[in-house]
């Protein structure tokens, strides 16, 4: 199964939640916000959301900026 994460296609196994995806990348703690198919998902929802074929994710962090 494939999804698009930050503009790049990425294979994932079926049944994966967003929270699991982030944890596997060992970056969950840094993530500020996720957009899932154009909808904003705050942290509380990451555990409930099971990724589907062709889902599009934007996984964002907060960085220094002017």
């Amino acid at each position, binding site marked *: 199964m494939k999804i698009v994460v*930050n*503009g790049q296609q990425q294979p994932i196994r079926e049944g994966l939640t967003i929270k699991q995806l982030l944890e596997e*990348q*060992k*970056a969950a*703690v*840094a*993530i*500020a*916000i996720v*957009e899932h198919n154009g909808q*904003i998902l*705050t942290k509380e929802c990451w555990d409930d959301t099971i990724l589907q074929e062709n889902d599009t994710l*934007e*996984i*964002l*962090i*907060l*960085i*220094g*900026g*002017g």
Partner: protein
Amino acid sequence: MTGVTVHQNDTLVIGGISLKSRLFVGTGKFSSHELMPRVIQASGSQVITMALRRVDWKNPQENVLNYLPKEDVVLLPNTSGARNAEEAVRIARLAKAAGCGNWVKIEVIQDQRYLLPDNFETVKATEQLVKEGFVVLPYVSPDLGTARRLLDAGAAAVMPLGAPIGSNRGLQTKELIRILIEEISLPIIVDAGIGRPSEAAEAMEMGAAAVLVNTAIATANDPVQMANAFRLGVEAGRIAFMAGPGARHERAEASSPLTGFLREVSE
């Protein structure tokens, strides 16, 4: 530096929040996250900007919020990366959901050489975000017609550039900023280009409500001391504005009495 207590009641109110400091500070370009809290403390700033970006799995960065004060500071996420109003709106909503509060600095840029903002898209984004309850501070190329539309749209301030972002070249657009200050009944905050405390002071002496500084602090040899210097410069300029500077003269006006002496003899 015992100092004199000054302007105790001189606060800048934006979005219902009273700010004592008129120096906004950006967090880009610092050589380390560890510098940030020290810089922010030295600057005395109460408004701090940051940005959203896609995570890079290979080089995950820490959340910048971990390095910012938890109290007495307003977060001002920018919409950098947006190329039109729609993207700016989307980024603003994401930043708010990410816990940055409801302030947003709109930054819509298509030009990659001078990073000049697109005033037309900025006005559109402002109109939408004000409707959604954001406190909107748009970054613009200084232009009176744009500022009028931002005022009508409900912007909380107007943030014209002094010179291109990161150029450290100061108030190149002074004439247009001066006109905005005179004509627009919103706080005018000079954003971008300010490279020296003297330039920040000059903006404040002209009547700017605040200045936003990032590159000049982040790229100084000693960013903490430079933040301190900008804090002092902004205060100096603000107090001078309120103290009413004297007139300029083409010719000299003696400081010591001009009557000659030791030589003049009268009858």
